[in-house]
């Protein structure tokens, strides 16, 4: 199928009324949770996971993806108006967005964030279309060793790049990998770490784990913190119109941000949060007025916002073409697909063109929705910021319970959520990343299976990871990711 045929086919899928409605619903819900500080895309997607059992796989993925990119739009609203990032991806936007809002130019900041997000998403979709076909054709040559090496690199990259304490991040990944081994071992049929509990034979429930880590733990942490901010200023529609000078300034940052985000989003292990930080650093470096950054430079919003949206789209490249999620949100998406019996991988483009192209086109439509709706609706989103968290969290707790229960009708899973939530909260207090635990949990069984297969093929010779050029490349990259920061630290310690 050529790209044009694919897009035409995708249009016919994405324009089905049911898909359209789920896309719109997801995008709006995403914006809503993005606006509200205290609930992120991760928690929202987890809460929706059980509902996806009841709808078609296309609709499910389109809706969850809508939540993801919708949250990127919404996150910037709270960042700009309250200096409270609704999502980690929009944390950078507070740096220049909040000063602009204080200067009475909140409208311009919001407009810049939205138009940059839209442009970033569109260019991200173009990158996704171009890369996915190419990567899928290469991926058919990937062997088990290559997959295993690539996933290990992805996990190491996710825990070392941009992390202040790589050992803590790596520890979370390993805990996730260990939790992933619970249940019946696929190769030997032996039950592992089940301690006689039949409920554990299928392994730890992904939904229960994610809800504990992101739902319960975040609720506990936010009850005290969330309602401390004052009310936001009102923003009129007229204020959204940017000056010609602003428009001129944001064009180049959008292009640079998109390219940067598109690249890092597609790499396993680096995602939209890192992209937005890198983009900010880049913009400040190339700017002719770096002193303006941090005091209300529109470039400081345009670059990161386009980068995180572009990365959010291209993150689907490895997920859909290799079946390897590059970040925790993609891990949840993959979980949703597996619930529907779809194993993403190089064959998916051929076998399920409706899924792939429908998703691609729905990204475009969803982002268009968001742009068209969010500009006039901005007043409503701003007033959402007035909803106190104390009205929301009791409902979230009930929805968590019912969501987990609906997966397989086991009250045991609710107890599990409570336990995971308590541990997750304690870990978050000590600045451990629960997201990395989840990534390790999802990738663990895939890594183990591929590792076993690779060593079976090579008759137990570990040199297979160095003899195969693709695997060898990943091994070298992994070692570099571990050793370079270590070397830097030792040098700093001496100096």
């Amino acid at each position, binding site marked *: 199928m050529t790209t044009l045929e694919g897009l035409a086919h995708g249009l016919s899928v994405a324009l089905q009324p049911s898909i359209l409605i789920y896309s719109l619903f997801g995008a709006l819900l995403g914006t809503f949770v993005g606006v509200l500080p205290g609930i992120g895309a991760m928690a929202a997607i987890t809460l929706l996971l059980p*509902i996806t059992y*009841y709808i078609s796989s296309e609709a499910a993925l389109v809706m969850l993806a809508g939540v993801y990119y919708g949250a990127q739009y919404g996150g910037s609203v709270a960042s700009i108006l309250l200096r409270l990032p609704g999502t980690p991806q929009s944390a950078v936007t507070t740096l220049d967005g909040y000063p602009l809002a204080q200067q009475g130019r909140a409208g311009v900041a919001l407009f810049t964030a939205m138009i940059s997000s839209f442009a970033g998403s569109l260019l991200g979709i173009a990158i996704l279309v171009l890369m996915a076909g190419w990567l899928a054709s290469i991926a058919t040559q990937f062997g088990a060793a290559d997959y295993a090496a690539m996933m290990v690199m992805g996990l190491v990259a996710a825990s070392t790049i941009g992390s202040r304490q790589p*050992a*803590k991040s*790596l*520890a979370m990944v*390993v*805990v996730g*990998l*260990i939790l992933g*081994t619970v249940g019946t071992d696929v*190769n*030997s049929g*032996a039950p*592992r*770490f089940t301690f006689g509990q039949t409920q554990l034979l299928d392994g730890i429930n992904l939904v229960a784990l994610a809800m504990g880590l992101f739902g*319960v733990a975040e*609720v*506990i*942490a936010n*009850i*005290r913190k969330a*309602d401390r901010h004052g009310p936001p200023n009102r923003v009129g529609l007229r204020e959204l119109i940017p000056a010609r000078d602003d428009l001129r300034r944001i064009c180049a940052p959008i292009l640079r941000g998109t390219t940067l985000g598109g690249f890092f989003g597609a790499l396993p292990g680096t995602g939209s949060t890192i992209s937005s930080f890198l983009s900010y650093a880049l913009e400040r470096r190339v700017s002719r007025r770096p002193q303006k950054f941090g005091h209300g430079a529109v470039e400081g919003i345009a670059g990161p916002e386009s980068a995180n949206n572009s990365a959010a789209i291209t993150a689907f490249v490895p997920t859909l073409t290799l079946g390897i999620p590059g970040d925790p949100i993609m891990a949840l998406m993959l979980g949703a697909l597996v619930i529907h019996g779809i194993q993403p991988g190089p064959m998916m483009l051929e076998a399920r063109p409706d899924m792939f192209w429908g998703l691609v086109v729905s990204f475009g439509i969803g982002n268009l929705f968001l742009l068209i709706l969010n500009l006039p609706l901005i007043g409503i989103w701003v007033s959402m910021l007035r909803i*106190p968290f*104390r*009205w929301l*969290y*009791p*409902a979230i*707790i*009930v*929805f968590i*319970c*019912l969501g987990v*229960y*609906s997966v397989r*009708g086991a*009250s045991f899973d*609710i*107890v599990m*959520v*409570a336990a995971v*939530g*308590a541990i997750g*909260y*304690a*870990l978050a*207090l*000590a*600045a*451990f990343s629960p997201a990395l635990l989840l990534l390790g949990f999802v990738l663990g069984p895939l890594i*183990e299976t591929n*590792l*076993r297969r690779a*060593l*079976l093929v090579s*008759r*137990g*010779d*570990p040199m297979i990871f160095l003899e195969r050029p693709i695997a060898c490349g990943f091994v070298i990259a992994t070692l570099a990711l571990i050793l370079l920061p270590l070397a830097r630290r030792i040098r700093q310690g001496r100096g």
Partner: protein
Amino acid sequence: MQRDYHDLLWGGILALFGLGVAGYAAQSYDFGDLRRMGPGFFPVILGLILAVLGIVIAIPAWWRQAQPEPIAWREGVAVLAALLFFGFSMTRLGIAPATFVAVLIASSVAARRGLVWRLMLAVVVTALTWAIFLGALDMPIPLFPWSR
């Protein structure tokens, strides 16, 4: 001196957990060899890696100063109590009483005191739960103790 107790404690816990996992897996499951890995291979290796990482986290924390984050005890207890109550009463009492009481438990630690807004919130959330999970999704759970 205020040591970094968070990292000290968690480093220790993770190291012990890693050792426990490795030890239990080594004892209970076949390790195999590189050519044919047994079910114990992966967990033993992971447990050992985690033990090393735990030590790497804990040791420098001894010499590092840090202000421990205040723990939200009350909030944590209320949220967990609401969850557990809901989990135990959902199938026995039905989701209407379970939701109503769980919301009251959870909202008891909110920054704002008072019973009226909490009762109103409980009514609204119960109605929403009924509409979404029984009305729209048609989940097979009783609404009240007598509706089976």
